């Protein structure tokens, strides 16, 4: 309820405004649709899109802000091919990085490239912009300033690197249309201010300061309005009063959100109740974890180092095995060692089996493979027509092989023979494990193994070894995935309760937006070569089982501010998480996951029982907790 006098004042202003708008509106709406051409307000050259976190593939282009009839747009487009190509910029490490103008060649590091060139061009309505990352180089003369635009619907665009450092002018022009505010929590995040919500918040506090201005208005509308309102800025009159008058404009959703945020603040200071696996309630006080230690990645394990752990008969020294695995965990494997080392990591070769014993075993396994392969190969088309369960599996495998890692040179091209090998491997696995059959996601695991082994039989048995561990993920009831999602949530509650609470308040605490991470072990998030590096780290089983979940926690932790400050809901979170693909730095993810492990390890006595179990802290002799 607003006093009549105030309402009148408002009405009058409103009428004037409307008259003007009608006059202007008829003018501009006609003009804007037919006559006014798009107006390029600013254009910055040499703003390069970086294809993926890994590698140095920058595609130079133009960033512009364009006023169009339908709104104001931020647009980026790559230079036409051949134009202005081959310019050079100083790289992060001081050496020069060249930037191409033509599509980058495809390397195994570049699974996400595809037909990137056209894919990258975008046009974004400024009203759809929610925030952007704004990362300045550590030193002015090294590296480039970049921004990454994030939309209200959760879309993240490719990072844009400003070669000429003209970011200031870009921000200045952008500020004409939207209000920008630096996030208090993350200095690299710039948030588009929601003027309506902020106006409302200000109006509430303004009313508070004025000691119930509304009731005073009721008593003496005129003088209060004159003295009271005149103190309030014109911003208040323009934005706040209409917002207050039109209470429907403050959506229910915003109110709920505001209430939830208040609740979150309260909860931060409260005791947390956790239900443990036994169903009994256990009250856990908010844990103060020690600070995260600085962790550094080490260089990959070389063939020489690897061999130094071997005894003369080819077996590994049991005493030193843990040390070797920790080395692999810390640095991964050098590329030339993968073919050998993966056989051990995937339980195809036993660490304590001599070369001679393995050769005998391999002969048997080869025979077994060929036998199973000939089983399905002998099924004729006629027989297949009455064997639906088989032909269905075959169809699934065919469909997925045709679209697995096809941008990786090893699988590129229509007549690529490696596709047939992958197909044969997976079909033989169907015979090996007919009860499970083929499930989507398996080809994602099989392809890198085949690429590294480059041998059908070795690849098959390594794949079998891997499937042994992850088979439960592919079972129909999805129970194992659900279990991991719950564990992930429990871990997040300990490591980052603020984010965990936020997710809960936004119906996302089932963690299903992490489904892809957990099912195919980040295969879709990292480049092909990064995936290989990541998997061998996980396969060491160090420093704890469920390290995969700590990787998830580390990534989510790094996105906390973006998720919360952008007020992402269920769908935006899923979209944002999906869009992280190709833009995560593997070493950062690995080091922060390891750091989180150390944090938890250091306070393991205080951790709830189930968390200790997830991380295998229950056993005191756990040697992995220290380097």
């Amino acid at each position: 309820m607003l006093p009549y006098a105030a309402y009148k004042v408002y009405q009058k202003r409103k009428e004037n405004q409307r008259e003007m708008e009608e006059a202007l509106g008829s003018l501009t709406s006609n003009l804007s649709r037919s006559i006014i051409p798009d107006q390029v307000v600013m254009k910055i050259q040499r703003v390069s899109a970086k294809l993926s976190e890994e590698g140095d593939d920058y595609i130079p282009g133009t960033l512009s802000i364009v006023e169009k009839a339908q709104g104001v747009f931020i647009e980026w487009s790559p230079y036409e091919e051949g134009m202005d190509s081959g310019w050079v910029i100083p790289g992060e490490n001081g050496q020069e990085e060249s930037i191409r103008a033509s599509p980058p060649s495809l390397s195994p590091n570049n699974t996400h490239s595809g037909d990137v060139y056209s894919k990258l061009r975008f046009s974004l309505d400024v009203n759809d912009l929610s925030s952007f990352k704004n990362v300045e180089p550590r030193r002015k003369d090294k590296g480039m300033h970049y921004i990454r635009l994030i939309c209200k619907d959760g879309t993240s665009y490719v990072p844009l690197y400003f070669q000429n450092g003209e970011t200031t002018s870009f921000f200045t022009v952008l500020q004409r249309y939207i209000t920008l505010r630096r996030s208090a929590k993350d200095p690299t995040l710039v948030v588009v201010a929601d003027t309506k919500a902020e106006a409302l918040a200000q109006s509430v506090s303004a009313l508070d300061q004025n000691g119930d201005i509304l009731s005073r208005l009721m008593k003496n509308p005129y003088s209060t309005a004159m003295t009271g309102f005149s103190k309030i800025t014109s911003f208040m009159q323009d934005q706040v009063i209409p917002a207050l008058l039109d209470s429907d404009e403050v959506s229910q959703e915003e109110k709920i959100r505001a209430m939830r945020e208040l609740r979150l603040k309260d909860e931060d200071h409260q005791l947390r109740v956790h239900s443990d696996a036994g169903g009994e309630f256990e009250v856990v006080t908010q844990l103060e974890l020690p600070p995260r230690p600085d962790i550094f990645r080490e260089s990959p394990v070389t063939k020489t180092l690897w061999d130094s752990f071997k005894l003369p008969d080819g077996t590994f020294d049991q005493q030193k095995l843990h040390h070797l695995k920790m080395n692999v965990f810390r640095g991964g494997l050098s590329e030339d060692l993968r073919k050998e080392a993966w056989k051990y990591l995937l339980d195809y070769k036993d660490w304590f089996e001599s070369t001679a014993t393995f050769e005998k075993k391999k002969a048997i396994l080869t025979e077994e493979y060929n036998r199973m392969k000939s089983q399905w190969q002998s099924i004729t088309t006629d027989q297949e027509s009455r064997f639906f369960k088989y032909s269905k599996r075959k169809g699934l495998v065919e469909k997925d092989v045709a679209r697995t890692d096809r941008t990786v040179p090893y699988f590129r091209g229509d007549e690529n023979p490696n596709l047939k090998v992958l197909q044969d491997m997976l079909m033989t696995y169907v015979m090996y494990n007919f009860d499970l059959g083929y499930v989507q996601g398996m080809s994602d695991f099989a392809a890198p193994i085949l690429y590294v082994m480059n041998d059908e039989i070795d690849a098959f048995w390594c794949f079998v070894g891997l499937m042994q561990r992850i088979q439960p993920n592919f079972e129909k009831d999805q129970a194992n995935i659900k279990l991991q999602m719950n564990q992930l949530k429990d871990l997040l509650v300990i490591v980052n309760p603020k984010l965990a609470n936020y997710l809960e308040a936004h119906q996302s605490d089932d963690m299903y937006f992490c489904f892809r991470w957990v099912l195919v072990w980040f295969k879709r998030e990292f480049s092909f070569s990064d995936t290989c590096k990541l998997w061998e780290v996980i396969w060491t089983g160090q420093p704890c089982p469920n390290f995969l979940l700590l990787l998830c926690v580390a990534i989510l932790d790094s996105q906390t501010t973006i998720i919360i400050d952008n007020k992402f809901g269920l769908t935006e979170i899923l979209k944002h998480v999906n869009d992280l693909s190709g833009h995560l730095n593997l070493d950062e993810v690995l080091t922060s996951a390891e750091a989180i492990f150390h944090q938890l390890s250091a306070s393991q006595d205080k951790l709830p029982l189930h968390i200790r179990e997830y991380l295998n802290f229950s056993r005191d002799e756990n040697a992995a907790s220290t380097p």
Partner: protein
Amino acid sequence: MANRGGNSASRAGGSAGTGSNRTCQFKLVLLGESAVGKSSLVLRFVKGQFHEYQESTIGAAFLTQTVCLDDATVKFEIWDTAGQERYHSLAPMYYRGAQAAIVVYDITNQDSFQKAKNWVKELQRQASPNIVMALAGNKADMANKRTVEYEEAQAYAEDNALLFMETSAKTSMNVNDIFMAIAKKLPIGPPPGQPQDTVDVNQPAQQQKSGTCCK
């Protein structure tokens, strides 16, 4: 987002500034057998792209696209799901609360048509009763390998009151059209909390908003 105001949006041009324009959001889910082209349809509709070797969808993807009708702007929140039966148990999570669904099959694959019928049945039983359903016979560019006859699918669609089109994400045939047809069937009532006979205090903002979408 990249192709906002593409083919679909420009058809309804000229409706801006009438004051009656409003934005309605609808949740749409894509269902259907594996590899029938669900992701490709969405990618074509939202980004105007087509990838011959589109990766399989693990879990779900979420995209948005806006289309303009004569008197309203419809914002689709599109859930693209994994097709394989093994992940069927996740589907209800995605079609729950959906106001529209596109059930997709591959015209060269009879089995995928059967699967589509199963999806239709499941939606009729489990989804919101007013859900607008469309059946899309995708890969229409491969008509020489057709195993599902147009008439057969059309008859089925008629019996079940489904919108029906044969589509091709590859050539973009009927892709925008099927989404437009759905948009037109969606209940676009007055925006909640804003009865039509009251004065809209924030009208300038509203006009601005509609102006950003329609040409």
